[in-house]
């Protein structure tokens, strides 16, 4: 079967790719576009390691087909830092040791950024429920939750 020719915007840049019907957006990012920052932990939408934004919606890229992405805006972990300048969440995760092995980190960061763009003053419970779809087996979540709350506080302070 002929492949689909898709034109999209990826991390702010125009991108074109060919994909088969069964290839997920995660497959496309990793295997066609060589962006391996989004991880496959389950391929069933349970772990969140492949979290990306599609048209500003947080999705598991393993549950989106590449062929669905024509004319869409896709944002992955690779586009989170502004050139050499890390996003405040990335900096905070490093400062507060909010990662151990790091496999879930890209997905957690993408999801946390999506939260803070909607709500810059989340409660701990709101952060915990927002990130409930991002499994982390190393940290017990404590330092992740703290880093997200602390970034939110910094962002509010800077917005003053």
């Amino acid at each position, binding site marked *: 079967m002929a492949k689909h020719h898709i034109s999209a915007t990826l991390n702010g840049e125009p991108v074109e790719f060919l994909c088969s019907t*069964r290839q997920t957006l995660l497959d496309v990012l*990793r295997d066609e576009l060589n*962006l*391996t*920052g*989004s*991880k*496959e*932990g*389950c*391929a*069933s939408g*349970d*772990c969140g*390691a492949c979290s990306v934004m599609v048209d500003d919606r947080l999705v598991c890229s393993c549950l989106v087909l590449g062929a669905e992405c024509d004319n869409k805006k896709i944002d*992955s*972990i*690779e586009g*989170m*830092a502004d050139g050499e300048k*890390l996003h405040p969440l*990335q900096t905070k*995760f*490093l*400062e*507060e*040791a909010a*990662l*151990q*092995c*790091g*496999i*879930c*980190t*890209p997905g957690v*960061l993408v999801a946390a950024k999506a939260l803070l763009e909607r709500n810059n003053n989340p409660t*701990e*419970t709101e*952060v*915990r*429920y927002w*990130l*409930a*779809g*991002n*499994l*982390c*087996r*190393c*940290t*017990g*979540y*404590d*330092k*992740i*939750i*703290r880093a997200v709350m602390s970034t939110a506080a910094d962002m509010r302070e800077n917005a003053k």
Partner: protein
Amino acid sequence: MSSEQKDYKWVGTRQIRPDGHDKVTGRAKFGSDFSLSGMIHGRVLRSPHAHAIIQSIDTSKAEALPGVKAVITSKDLKDQPSELKPAGEGMVNYRDMTRNVMAREKVLYDGHAVAAVAATTVEIAEAALELIDVKYEVLPHVVDVDAAMKDDAPILDDTMVPIGYETKGPTNIAKHVEFSLGDTGKGFEEADVVIERSYKTEAVHQGYIEPHAVVASVSEDGQAQIWCCTQGQFMVRTFVGQLLGMPTSSIRVTPSEIGGGFGGKTVVYLEPLATLLSSKVGKPVKMIMTREEVFRASGPTSGGSMDFKIGATKAGKITAVEATVRLLAGAFPGAPVAPACMCAVAPYDIANVHVQGFDVVVNRPKVAAYRAPGAPISAFGAESIVDELAKELGMDPLKIRKLNAAKKGTKAAYGPTFRDIGYEETVDRAMDHDHYKAPLGPNQGRGVASGFWFNIGGESSATVNINEDGTAVVISGNPDIGGSRASLAMMAAEELGIEYSDVRPIIGDTAAIGYNFLTGGSRVTFATGLAVVEAAKDAVRQLCERAAKIWEVDAEGVVWDNGHAKPASTNVGDFEPLSLAALAAQAPKTGGPICGHNAQNVQGAGPGFATHICDVEVDPETGGVTILRYTAVQDVGRAIHPSYVEGQIQGGAVQGIGWALNEEYIYNSKGTLDNPGFLDYRIPVASDLPMIEAVMVECPNDRHPYGVRGVGEVPIVPPMAAVANAIESATGVRMEALPMSPPRLLAALDSSNIKQAAE
């Protein structure tokens, strides 16, 4: 307990980890992120049966499919003799290992590998699996440890010779172990109170988020390169070499970043298959497990059943403990039954102890190590019955632990006499903690439990290279699973007297550094850390020699102080101190490159103890348990990087909470796994948990230059009993089986209510 606190510049501070930026930007390369040009893809055909004879395997249709490059079965792997061979800290039987990697006469569990295919695409490889025709004769199966020990149980391997166990006929009991101290008969006679209970735990998976992945490339001259996510690149080299009959020098293994392991990546599954496929095809072969394969065919740790008997005086002094621990090993022997027995009551000074254990094969995947292997299982029994004892005696559960606490000089039932240990201090700190005094509401309860883990040393090699500009590279050989590179670099910076940011720690492949035992046993910051410290001292010795050469004095006349060579005294001469950078710049003229090195089999690991406090609220309508508050106190020796030590404690505690409340392998009546995915095998998610307060007690290990003890494993030991004890405190119902999931707890609450109504 804490010894003299020296002023360190780096040790004990919270530095940014050297691999951090790559991990927050998606740049870090994990197992499945690696690719080579010309690479093809491998997939594994797995058994749909729990137990069956393989009558025949016809691969001809699969081989004929366009795009298929090779198909392998156990016929392509030479058989191995059945003998125990030393490998790292334990023994392995390569006959079992080759059968686990690829089934031979029989399939022994749902998910057991039967054949593997390499093809130009994953899709073609998967289509080829469908074309492999395997004829099975299905046999009766057994997945329960107690059922497997019965005389009429289906036998997995009728040639198996048990160790330490007399049997008339074939058996599933692979091994029997015993540990004794004193005379338990006498101990129970001295007791005023004797309690007997039985407990059960389910098999649980390590649950690392990164599935196993490998790329193997074998060239025409037989040289193999393997890139994989593993806890031990040297382990992969040894095992692949043995299974495929390749000399060690022909295999070079490069570990990728590793996306969690917890013990589950201390063995090989895909690596020998990918290497064999690559050697047949002459192209690199990539293999990645699906999540379903991870659950069906890798890990998990044992489930078990246990009987405990404890006796104590009215005053609360424990006089005797007897325990029997039966652990399921999966399809091949190797349940962590010895450590389960040894750790069970190690926190306590008890004169009379007898603990025995059985290693039992069943039709499940062969167990792999999981964080303090065996200890959490037996501790669930031991720490539950100690709680019952406290209740029976009307004593505070921490006070009874303090009264019986093992201390320096206590002889443990498993053999050694403890040196400086911080167990009692963990109990004291828990007792003094706000948490222990906080009020509780309706349906709420509080539980405590303690835990022990040995920690290990082992073989480590490290190199510290001084660069021309006065910076340094630290090469070690242990995959960094949770921040160990930061700790190694901090210790090297401390020794060299240079900036932490000027030390670049890297993890060498098997050809770049001497042998290192794998990342496990909470050993890296301790043992490999010690090798790094010694290698840095070796570099410093060379730096001092260079200064002596420049000053034309004896090397003994030069000392190293804060990154500078200085005359040891005014008698040596009046010389301006030479910085490391100045000495590095002059190295070509003073003798060439400066490379510190150390390799040793590190001894003297300091045992780890922990005491946890857990508050729960139980919903009487649903049986659901909410963890309200959790405090984990642990003797960490000395925390080199406190944030990552806290992280180990928090992560271990939460894995234990998952084990306590939700996680279990669920087999159906056919012996196939019903929940091989994260939706149905439910590990804790962020919304399940409160913050986990990590309290670090620092009782330094006197056999490490910075006092390091292992910290990664002991935090998973106490949680199951801490949660069970808290549930008992909240409801009066004692849960004697894991997991304490809502349906099970609700059933227990209901039957307790019925019992109360009847009384």
